[in-house]
Protein backbone atom coordinates (compact mmCIF):
# COMPACT_ATOMS: atom_id res chain seq x y z
CA UNK A 1 0.00 0.00 0.00
CA UNK A 2 1.16 3.52 -0.73
CA UNK A 3 2.37 5.58 2.21
CA UNK A 4 0.40 8.59 0.97
CA UNK A 5 -2.92 8.38 -0.81
CA UNK A 6 -4.49 11.84 -0.67
CA UNK A 7 -3.44 14.97 -2.55
CA UNK A 8 -4.10 16.83 0.71
CA UNK A 9 -1.30 14.88 2.41
CA UNK A 10 0.97 16.68 -0.05
CA UNK A 11 -0.72 20.09 -0.49
CA UNK A 12 -1.64 20.17 3.18
CA UNK A 13 -2.23 20.12 6.04
CA UNK A 14 -3.25 23.73 6.60
CA UNK A 15 -1.44 24.60 9.80
CA UNK A 16 0.17 27.22 12.00
CA UNK A 17 3.94 27.21 11.39
CA UNK A 18 6.75 26.62 11.66
CA UNK A 19 7.01 22.84 11.82
CA UNK A 20 4.59 20.05 10.96
CA UNK A 21 6.16 17.75 13.57
CA UNK A 22 7.07 20.29 16.27
CA UNK A 23 4.05 22.59 15.94
CA UNK A 24 1.11 20.98 14.10
CA UNK A 25 1.72 17.49 15.53
CA UNK A 26 2.23 18.96 19.00
CA UNK A 27 -1.07 20.88 18.81
CA UNK A 28 -2.88 17.71 17.83
CA UNK A 29 -1.37 15.79 20.75
CA UNK A 30 -2.67 18.55 23.07
CA UNK A 31 -6.12 18.38 21.50
CA UNK A 32 -6.24 14.58 21.80
CA UNK A 33 -5.19 14.85 25.45
CA UNK A 34 -8.01 17.35 26.10
CA UNK A 35 -10.53 15.04 24.44
CA UNK A 36 -9.30 12.10 26.47
CA UNK A 37 -9.67 14.15 29.67
CA UNK A 38 -13.14 15.04 28.38
CA UNK A 39 -13.16 18.48 29.97
CA UNK A 40 -11.01 21.58 30.31
CA UNK A 41 -8.18 20.92 32.76
CA UNK A 42 -7.54 23.36 35.64
CA UNK A 43 -3.90 22.44 36.18
CA UNK A 44 -1.59 21.34 33.39
CA UNK A 45 1.92 19.95 33.62
CA UNK A 46 3.85 19.55 30.39
CA UNK A 47 7.16 17.67 30.17
CA UNK A 48 9.12 17.75 26.91
CA UNK A 49 11.65 15.09 25.93
CA UNK A 50 14.26 14.69 23.17
CA UNK A 51 14.02 17.07 20.24
CA UNK A 52 10.91 18.69 21.78
CA UNK A 53 12.97 19.53 24.89
CA UNK A 54 15.83 20.96 22.83
CA UNK A 55 13.92 23.05 20.29
CA UNK A 56 10.46 23.75 21.72
CA UNK A 57 11.01 27.49 22.10
CA UNK A 58 11.91 28.17 18.48
CA UNK A 59 9.15 25.92 17.18
CA UNK A 60 6.41 27.16 19.53
CA UNK A 61 5.86 23.55 20.62
CA UNK A 62 4.82 24.82 24.07
CA UNK A 63 2.19 27.17 22.60
CA UNK A 64 0.99 24.41 20.28
CA UNK A 65 0.47 21.87 23.08
CA UNK A 66 -1.25 24.47 25.30
CA UNK A 67 -3.42 25.53 22.34
CA UNK A 68 -4.47 21.94 21.74
CA UNK A 69 -5.30 21.59 25.45
CA UNK A 70 -7.55 24.66 25.11
CA UNK A 71 -9.34 22.97 22.20
CA UNK A 72 -7.59 24.77 19.32
CA UNK A 73 -6.95 22.83 16.13
CA UNK A 74 -3.53 22.82 14.39
CA UNK A 75 -4.57 25.58 11.95
CA UNK A 76 -6.10 27.86 14.59
CA UNK A 77 -4.31 31.23 14.81
CA UNK A 78 -5.16 31.49 18.51
CA UNK A 79 -2.30 29.02 19.13
CA UNK A 80 0.13 31.96 19.08
CA UNK A 81 -1.58 33.44 22.17
CA UNK A 82 -2.47 30.16 23.88
CA UNK A 83 -0.26 30.71 26.94
CA UNK A 84 -1.92 34.05 27.77
CA UNK A 85 -5.35 32.60 26.89
CA UNK A 86 -4.75 29.82 29.43
CA UNK A 87 -3.72 32.36 32.06
CA UNK A 88 -6.88 34.40 31.41
CA UNK A 89 -8.97 31.27 31.92
CA UNK A 90 -7.21 30.68 35.25
CA UNK A 91 -5.52 27.53 34.03
CA UNK A 92 -2.12 26.86 35.61
CA UNK A 93 0.50 25.60 33.21
CA UNK A 94 3.83 24.23 34.42
CA UNK A 95 6.39 23.44 31.77
CA UNK A 96 9.58 21.43 32.21
CA UNK A 97 12.03 19.50 30.07
CA UNK A 98 13.57 16.12 30.79
CA UNK A 99 16.80 14.59 29.51
CA UNK A 100 15.39 11.10 30.05
CA UNK A 101 15.74 8.91 26.94
CA UNK A 102 12.50 8.19 25.12
CA UNK A 103 11.78 5.83 22.25
CA UNK A 104 10.73 8.68 19.96
CA UNK A 105 12.59 12.03 19.79
CA UNK A 106 9.37 14.10 19.68
CA UNK A 107 7.74 13.07 22.93
CA UNK A 108 5.63 15.00 25.44
CA UNK A 109 4.04 13.96 28.72
CA UNK A 110 0.91 15.88 29.75
CA UNK A 111 -0.62 15.72 33.21
CA UNK A 112 -4.12 17.23 33.50
CA UNK A 113 -5.99 17.87 36.75
CA UNK A 114 -9.39 19.22 37.65
CA UNK A 115 -11.31 18.80 40.93
CA UNK A 116 -8.98 16.05 42.11
CA UNK A 117 -9.35 14.01 38.89
CA UNK A 118 -5.99 13.48 37.20
CA UNK A 119 -5.08 12.10 33.78
CA UNK A 120 -1.57 11.53 32.50
CA UNK A 121 -0.96 10.96 28.79
CA UNK A 122 2.17 10.59 26.67
CA UNK A 123 2.09 11.65 23.04
CA UNK A 124 4.49 11.49 20.12
CA UNK A 125 4.69 13.44 16.88
CA UNK A 126 6.15 11.13 14.23
CA UNK A 127 6.20 13.75 11.46
CA UNK A 128 4.07 15.42 8.80
CA UNK A 129 1.65 16.73 11.42
CA UNK A 130 0.59 13.27 12.54
CA UNK A 131 -0.01 12.66 16.25
CA UNK A 132 -0.23 9.59 18.46
CA UNK A 133 -1.02 8.98 22.09
CA UNK A 134 1.14 6.09 23.34
CA UNK A 135 0.31 6.02 27.05
CA UNK A 136 -2.71 6.92 29.18
CA UNK A 137 -2.55 6.72 32.99
CA UNK A 138 0.28 4.21 32.79
CA UNK A 139 -1.40 2.02 30.15
CA UNK A 140 0.84 1.53 27.12
CA UNK A 141 -1.32 1.77 24.00
CA UNK A 142 -1.50 3.48 20.64
CA UNK A 143 -4.16 5.94 19.51
CA UNK A 144 -3.62 7.73 16.22
CA UNK A 145 -5.20 11.10 15.38
CA UNK A 146 -7.46 11.11 12.33
CA UNK A 147 -8.88 7.64 12.87
CA UNK A 148 -12.07 6.34 14.47
CA UNK A 149 -11.41 4.84 17.85
CA UNK A 150 -12.86 4.33 21.29
CA UNK A 151 -11.17 4.36 24.66
CA UNK A 152 -12.99 2.24 27.21
CA UNK A 153 -11.79 2.44 30.79
CA UNK A 154 -13.07 -0.56 32.72
CA UNK A 155 -12.39 -3.17 35.37
CA UNK A 156 -10.71 -6.35 34.20
CA UNK A 157 -13.71 -8.73 34.56
CA UNK A 158 -14.92 -11.45 32.23
CA UNK A 159 -17.66 -10.45 29.82
CA UNK A 160 -16.86 -6.72 29.63
CA UNK A 161 -15.03 -7.00 26.31
CA UNK A 162 -17.80 -9.23 24.93
CA UNK A 163 -20.50 -6.78 26.04
CA UNK A 164 -18.71 -3.87 24.36
CA UNK A 165 -18.17 -5.87 21.16
CA UNK A 166 -21.82 -6.99 21.13
CA UNK A 167 -23.11 -3.46 21.55
CA UNK A 168 -20.92 -2.21 18.68
CA UNK A 169 -22.01 -5.14 16.51
CA UNK A 170 -25.68 -4.45 17.18
CA UNK A 171 -25.15 -0.96 15.72
CA UNK A 172 -23.38 -2.29 12.64
CA UNK A 173 -19.98 -1.05 13.77
CA UNK A 174 -17.04 -3.24 12.79
CA UNK A 175 -13.88 -3.49 14.91
CA UNK A 176 -10.80 -3.20 12.69
CA UNK A 177 -8.21 -3.50 15.45
CA UNK A 178 -8.24 -3.59 19.22
CA UNK A 179 -5.86 -3.59 22.16
CA UNK A 180 -6.48 -4.34 25.82
CA UNK A 181 -4.14 -3.38 28.64
CA UNK A 182 -4.58 -3.89 32.38
CA UNK A 183 -2.69 -2.88 35.50
CA UNK A 184 -3.00 -6.43 36.91
CA UNK A 185 -5.54 -9.29 37.00
CA UNK A 186 -8.94 -7.96 38.04
CA UNK A 187 -7.68 -4.35 38.25
CA UNK A 188 -8.20 -1.24 36.12
CA UNK A 189 -7.98 -1.88 32.39
CA UNK A 190 -8.23 -0.01 29.10
CA UNK A 191 -9.57 -1.07 25.72
CA UNK A 192 -8.53 0.83 22.59
CA UNK A 193 -10.92 -0.12 19.79
CA UNK A 194 -10.44 1.04 16.20
CA UNK A 195 -13.67 0.96 14.25
CA UNK A 196 -14.36 1.08 10.51
CA UNK A 197 -17.44 3.24 11.03
CA UNK A 198 -17.84 6.40 13.08
CA UNK A 199 -19.29 5.79 16.52
CA UNK A 200 -22.26 8.10 17.17
CA UNK A 201 -21.85 10.28 20.27
CA UNK A 202 -24.96 8.86 21.92
CA UNK A 203 -23.34 5.43 21.96
CA UNK A 204 -20.83 6.61 24.54
CA UNK A 205 -23.60 6.70 27.14
CA UNK A 206 -24.80 3.21 26.20
CA UNK A 207 -21.24 1.87 26.42
CA UNK A 208 -20.77 3.57 29.79
CA UNK A 209 -23.87 1.75 31.09
CA UNK A 210 -22.16 -1.62 30.63
CA UNK A 211 -21.26 -3.08 34.01
CA UNK A 212 -17.63 -2.46 35.10
CA UNK A 213 -17.10 0.25 32.46
CA UNK A 214 -16.03 3.48 34.18
CA UNK A 215 -15.41 5.87 31.31
CA UNK A 216 -15.74 6.04 27.53
CA UNK A 217 -14.08 8.45 25.10
CA UNK A 218 -15.10 8.52 21.43
CA UNK A 219 -12.78 9.80 18.69
CA UNK A 220 -14.16 10.18 15.19
CA UNK A 221 -12.08 10.92 12.11
Amino acid at each position, binding site marked *: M*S*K*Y*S*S*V*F*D*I*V*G*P*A*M*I*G*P*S*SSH*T*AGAARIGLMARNIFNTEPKNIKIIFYG*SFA*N*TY*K*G*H*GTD*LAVIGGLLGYSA*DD*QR*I*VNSASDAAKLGINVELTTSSKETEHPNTVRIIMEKNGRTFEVVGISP*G*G*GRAEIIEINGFKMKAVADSNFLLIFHIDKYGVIAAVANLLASHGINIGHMEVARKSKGAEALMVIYTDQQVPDNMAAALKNIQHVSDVVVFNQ
Partner: protein
Amino acid sequence: MLFSTIEELINLAESKNLKISDIMIEQESASTGKDKDTIYQQMFNHLEIMESAVKRGLSKKVKSRSGIVKGDAKKLWAYTKSSRSLSGSIITEAVAMAVATAEVNACMGPVVATPTAGSCGVVPGCIFAVQNHLKVDKKDLVEALFTAGAIGLIIANNASISGAAGGCQAEIGSASGMAAAAVVQLAGGTPKQCANAVAIALKSMLGLVCDPVAGLVEVPCIKRNASGASLAIVAADMALAGVESVIPCDEVIDAMYRVGRSIPVTLRETSMGGLATTETARKIEKNLK
Protein backbone atom coordinates in the same frame (compact mmCIF):
# COMPACT_ATOMS: atom_id res chain seq x y z
CA MET B 1 -4.31 4.38 -7.26
CA LEU B 2 -4.82 5.33 -10.92
CA PHE B 3 -1.06 6.01 -11.13
CA SER B 4 2.02 5.23 -9.08
CA THR B 5 4.70 6.56 -11.45
CA ILE B 6 5.15 9.75 -13.45
CA GLU B 7 5.03 7.68 -16.65
CA GLU B 8 1.63 6.21 -15.75
CA LEU B 9 0.33 9.67 -14.84
CA ILE B 10 1.54 11.26 -18.09
CA ASN B 11 0.23 8.38 -20.26
CA LEU B 12 -3.13 8.57 -18.54
CA ALA B 13 -3.39 12.34 -19.04
CA GLU B 14 -2.18 12.35 -22.65
CA SER B 15 -4.29 9.35 -23.75
CA LYS B 16 -7.43 11.00 -22.35
CA ASN B 17 -6.37 14.45 -23.53
CA LEU B 18 -6.63 15.75 -19.96
CA LYS B 19 -4.47 17.81 -17.65
CA ILE B 20 -2.53 16.17 -14.81
CA SER B 21 -4.83 18.01 -12.41
CA ASP B 22 -7.91 16.30 -13.93
CA ILE B 23 -6.39 12.88 -13.27
CA MET B 24 -5.48 13.90 -9.68
CA ILE B 25 -9.02 15.10 -8.94
CA GLU B 26 -10.42 11.86 -10.40
CA GLN B 27 -8.07 9.78 -8.23
CA GLU B 28 -8.89 11.78 -5.08
CA SER B 29 -12.60 11.35 -5.71
CA ALA B 30 -12.21 7.60 -6.29
CA SER B 31 -10.15 7.01 -3.14
CA THR B 32 -12.15 9.21 -0.75
CA GLY B 33 -15.66 8.87 -2.18
CA LYS B 34 -15.99 12.66 -2.06
CA ASP B 35 -17.47 14.47 -5.06
CA LYS B 36 -15.23 16.58 -7.25
CA ASP B 37 -16.76 19.90 -6.14
CA THR B 38 -15.97 19.18 -2.47
CA ILE B 39 -12.40 18.26 -3.38
CA TYR B 40 -12.01 21.37 -5.53
CA GLN B 41 -13.37 23.54 -2.70
CA GLN B 42 -10.88 22.12 -0.20
CA MET B 43 -8.00 22.96 -2.53
CA PHE B 44 -9.49 26.40 -3.13
CA ASN B 45 -9.41 26.96 0.65
CA HIS B 46 -5.76 25.97 0.72
CA LEU B 47 -5.04 28.43 -2.11
CA GLU B 48 -6.69 31.20 -0.05
CA ILE B 49 -4.48 30.40 2.97
CA MET B 50 -1.42 30.53 0.69
CA GLU B 51 -2.52 33.87 -0.73
CA SER B 52 -3.03 35.36 2.74
CA ALA B 53 0.40 34.16 3.84
CA VAL B 54 2.06 35.77 0.81
CA LYS B 55 0.22 39.07 1.41
CA ARG B 56 1.10 39.06 5.09
CA GLY B 57 4.77 38.27 4.48
CA LEU B 58 5.13 40.96 1.82
CA SER B 59 3.34 43.75 3.65
CA LYS B 60 3.96 43.28 7.36
CA LYS B 61 7.21 43.10 9.20
CA VAL B 62 7.14 39.60 10.63
CA LYS B 63 9.41 38.40 13.42
CA SER B 64 10.12 34.85 14.52
CA ARG B 65 10.30 33.71 18.12
CA SER B 66 14.04 33.15 17.76
CA GLY B 67 14.49 36.66 16.38
CA ILE B 68 16.34 35.37 13.30
CA VAL B 69 13.60 36.31 10.82
CA LYS B 70 13.50 40.04 10.25
CA GLY B 71 11.41 40.50 7.13
CA ASP B 72 13.57 39.83 4.05
CA ALA B 73 10.43 39.35 1.93
CA LYS B 74 9.55 43.03 2.29
CA LYS B 75 13.03 43.98 1.09
CA LEU B 76 12.74 41.62 -1.86
CA TRP B 77 9.31 42.95 -2.81
CA ALA B 78 10.59 46.52 -2.85
CA TYR B 79 13.46 45.34 -5.03
CA THR B 80 11.11 43.67 -7.55
CA LYS B 81 9.38 47.03 -7.95
CA SER B 82 12.68 48.87 -8.53
CA SER B 83 13.20 47.41 -12.06
CA ARG B 84 16.80 46.65 -11.08
CA SER B 85 16.23 42.90 -10.94
CA LEU B 86 18.83 40.93 -12.88
CA SER B 87 16.86 37.67 -13.08
CA GLY B 88 13.64 39.20 -14.36
CA SER B 89 10.40 40.03 -12.67
CA ILE B 90 8.79 36.56 -12.62
CA ILE B 91 11.72 34.95 -10.84
CA THR B 92 12.29 37.87 -8.47
CA GLU B 93 8.60 37.99 -7.56
CA ALA B 94 8.50 34.21 -7.07
CA VAL B 95 11.51 34.50 -4.78
CA ALA B 96 9.93 37.34 -2.79
CA MET B 97 6.64 35.46 -2.37
CA ALA B 98 8.38 32.18 -1.49
CA VAL B 99 10.38 33.98 1.20
CA ALA B 100 7.22 35.77 2.39
CA THR B 101 5.45 32.45 2.92
CA ALA B 102 8.45 30.80 4.57
CA GLU B 103 8.84 33.79 6.91
CA VAL B 104 5.19 33.70 7.89
CA ASN B 105 5.66 30.01 8.63
CA ALA B 106 8.70 30.71 10.80
CA CYS B 107 6.66 33.33 12.68
CA MET B 108 3.87 30.88 13.59
CA GLY B 109 1.51 32.14 10.91
CA PRO B 110 -1.05 30.07 8.99
CA VAL B 111 0.41 28.20 6.00
CA VAL B 112 -0.22 25.08 3.97
CA ALA B 113 2.54 22.45 4.21
CA THR B 114 3.45 21.92 0.52
CA PRO B 115 4.77 19.28 0.77
CA THR B 116 6.15 20.26 4.21
CA ALA B 117 6.05 23.35 6.42
CA GLY B 118 9.77 23.96 5.85
CA SER B 119 9.26 24.03 2.07
CA CYS B 120 5.84 25.71 2.08
CA GLY B 121 6.96 28.81 0.13
CA VAL B 122 8.13 27.28 -3.15
CA VAL B 123 4.84 26.34 -4.81
CA PRO B 124 2.84 29.45 -3.77
CA GLY B 125 5.76 31.73 -4.74
CA CYS B 126 5.87 30.26 -8.24
CA ILE B 127 2.16 30.11 -9.02
CA PHE B 128 1.35 33.61 -7.74
CA ALA B 129 4.33 35.08 -9.64
CA VAL B 130 3.11 33.43 -12.83
CA GLN B 131 -0.39 34.71 -12.15
CA ASN B 132 1.00 38.26 -12.12
CA HIS B 133 2.38 37.85 -15.64
CA LEU B 134 0.24 35.33 -17.53
CA LYS B 135 -3.48 35.38 -18.13
CA VAL B 136 -4.57 32.82 -15.56
CA ASP B 137 -7.50 32.90 -13.16
CA LYS B 138 -8.01 31.44 -9.70
CA LYS B 139 -9.41 28.21 -11.12
CA ASP B 140 -6.17 27.68 -13.04
CA LEU B 141 -4.20 28.20 -9.84
CA VAL B 142 -6.32 25.65 -7.96
CA GLU B 143 -5.78 23.18 -10.82
CA ALA B 144 -2.04 23.89 -10.74
CA LEU B 145 -2.06 22.90 -7.04
CA PHE B 146 -3.65 19.53 -7.95
CA THR B 147 -0.92 19.02 -10.55
CA ALA B 148 1.75 19.89 -7.98
CA GLY B 149 0.05 17.49 -5.56
CA ALA B 150 0.04 14.62 -8.09
CA ILE B 151 3.78 15.02 -8.63
CA GLY B 152 4.38 15.25 -4.87
CA LEU B 153 2.34 12.10 -4.22
CA ILE B 154 4.50 10.10 -6.62
CA ILE B 155 7.71 11.49 -5.13
CA ALA B 156 6.46 10.85 -1.57
CA ASN B 157 5.58 7.24 -2.33
CA ASN B 158 8.64 6.38 -4.43
CA ALA B 159 11.26 8.48 -2.64
CA SER B 160 10.57 10.84 0.27
CA ILE B 161 9.27 14.27 1.23
CA SER B 162 10.84 14.28 4.69
CA GLY B 163 14.12 16.00 5.50
CA ALA B 164 14.72 13.52 8.33
CA ALA B 165 14.43 10.64 5.86
CA GLY B 166 15.84 12.06 2.64
CA GLY B 167 17.57 15.37 3.35
CA CYS B 168 16.54 18.77 1.99
CA GLN B 169 16.34 17.40 -1.56
CA ALA B 170 13.22 15.61 -0.30
CA GLU B 171 11.65 18.86 0.95
CA ILE B 172 12.81 21.85 -1.11
CA GLY B 173 13.75 19.51 -3.98
CA SER B 174 10.30 17.92 -4.08
CA ALA B 175 8.64 21.33 -3.73
CA SER B 176 10.70 22.65 -6.63
CA GLY B 177 9.71 19.70 -8.85
CA MET B 178 6.05 20.14 -7.87
CA ALA B 179 6.20 23.87 -8.60
CA ALA B 180 7.91 23.30 -11.96
CA ALA B 181 5.04 21.06 -13.09
CA ALA B 182 2.47 23.56 -11.82
CA VAL B 183 4.13 26.41 -13.72
CA VAL B 184 4.37 24.42 -16.97
CA GLN B 185 0.65 23.67 -16.77
CA LEU B 186 -0.16 27.35 -16.05
CA ALA B 187 1.91 28.36 -19.08
CA GLY B 188 -0.08 25.99 -21.28
CA GLY B 189 2.52 23.21 -21.53
CA THR B 190 1.75 19.52 -22.01
CA PRO B 191 1.80 16.83 -19.31
CA LYS B 192 5.00 15.49 -20.89
CA GLN B 193 6.61 18.92 -20.56
CA CYS B 194 5.49 18.94 -16.91
CA ALA B 195 7.36 15.65 -16.37
CA ASN B 196 10.50 17.02 -18.01
CA ALA B 197 10.36 20.13 -15.84
CA VAL B 198 10.04 17.96 -12.72
CA ALA B 199 13.02 15.85 -13.78
CA ILE B 200 15.18 18.90 -14.55
CA ALA B 201 14.34 20.55 -11.21
CA LEU B 202 14.89 17.39 -9.14
CA LYS B 203 18.20 16.61 -10.84
CA SER B 204 19.54 19.99 -9.75
CA MET B 205 18.58 19.34 -6.13
CA LEU B 206 19.98 15.81 -5.71
CA GLY B 207 22.12 15.49 -2.62
CA LEU B 208 20.99 18.68 -0.89
CA VAL B 209 21.35 18.08 2.85
CA CYS B 210 19.03 19.10 5.70
CA ASP B 211 21.14 21.03 8.23
CA PRO B 212 18.90 23.50 10.07
CA VAL B 213 20.66 25.91 12.44
CA ALA B 214 19.54 25.29 16.05
CA GLY B 215 17.00 22.79 14.70
CA LEU B 216 14.72 25.62 13.59
CA VAL B 217 12.86 25.99 10.29
CA GLU B 218 14.67 29.26 9.52
CA VAL B 219 18.34 29.02 8.47
CA PRO B 220 18.91 27.89 5.73
CA CYS B 221 15.30 26.80 5.04
CA ILE B 222 13.81 30.21 4.22
CA LYS B 223 16.41 31.12 1.59
CA ARG B 224 16.26 27.61 0.17
CA ASN B 225 12.58 28.25 -0.51
CA ALA B 226 13.79 31.11 -2.70
CA SER B 227 16.29 28.98 -4.63
CA GLY B 228 13.73 26.19 -5.00
CA ALA B 229 11.26 28.65 -6.51
CA SER B 230 13.75 30.18 -8.95
CA LEU B 231 14.92 26.74 -10.04
CA ALA B 232 11.32 25.65 -10.67
CA ILE B 233 10.74 28.52 -13.08
CA VAL B 234 14.03 27.91 -14.91
CA ALA B 235 13.20 24.19 -15.20
CA ALA B 236 9.71 25.05 -16.49
CA ASP B 237 11.19 27.39 -19.08
CA MET B 238 13.61 24.70 -20.25
CA ALA B 239 10.83 22.12 -20.59
CA LEU B 240 8.55 24.61 -22.38
CA ALA B 241 11.40 25.30 -24.82
CA GLY B 242 11.32 21.61 -25.69
CA VAL B 243 14.35 20.49 -23.68
CA GLU B 244 13.95 16.89 -22.50
CA SER B 245 15.55 15.23 -19.50
CA VAL B 246 17.89 12.45 -20.68
CA ILE B 247 17.13 10.50 -17.50
CA PRO B 248 13.37 9.84 -17.34
CA CYS B 249 11.58 11.49 -14.40
CA ASP B 250 10.80 8.22 -12.59
CA GLU B 251 14.47 7.24 -12.72
CA VAL B 252 15.42 10.65 -11.31
CA ILE B 253 12.97 10.06 -8.44
CA ASP B 254 14.53 6.64 -7.84
CA ALA B 255 17.98 8.26 -7.82
CA MET B 256 16.68 10.77 -5.31
CA TYR B 257 15.51 7.91 -3.09
CA ARG B 258 18.89 6.18 -3.28
CA VAL B 259 20.81 9.42 -2.70
CA GLY B 260 18.58 10.14 0.32
CA ARG B 261 19.47 6.79 1.85
CA SER B 262 23.17 7.55 1.34
CA ILE B 263 23.02 10.90 3.14
CA PRO B 264 24.48 10.38 6.63
CA VAL B 265 22.17 10.89 9.59
CA THR B 266 24.20 13.95 10.67
CA LEU B 267 22.83 15.73 7.57
CA ARG B 268 19.20 14.66 7.89
CA GLU B 269 17.46 17.19 10.14
CA THR B 270 19.51 16.31 13.21
CA SER B 271 21.49 19.60 13.28
CA MET B 272 24.65 17.52 13.77
CA GLY B 273 26.45 18.64 10.62
CA GLY B 274 26.67 21.09 7.73
CA LEU B 275 25.55 24.65 8.38
CA ALA B 276 24.16 23.66 11.77
CA THR B 277 27.65 23.05 13.16
CA THR B 278 29.31 26.22 11.85
CA GLU B 279 30.80 28.71 14.29
CA THR B 280 27.97 31.19 13.74
CA ALA B 281 25.30 28.50 14.09
CA ARG B 282 26.80 27.52 17.45
CA LYS B 283 26.63 31.15 18.59
CA ILE B 284 22.98 31.45 17.52
CA GLU B 285 22.18 28.22 19.31
CA LYS B 286 23.88 29.41 22.49
CA ASN B 287 21.99 32.71 22.44
CA LEU B 288 18.65 30.93 22.13
CA LYS B 289 19.12 28.86 25.29
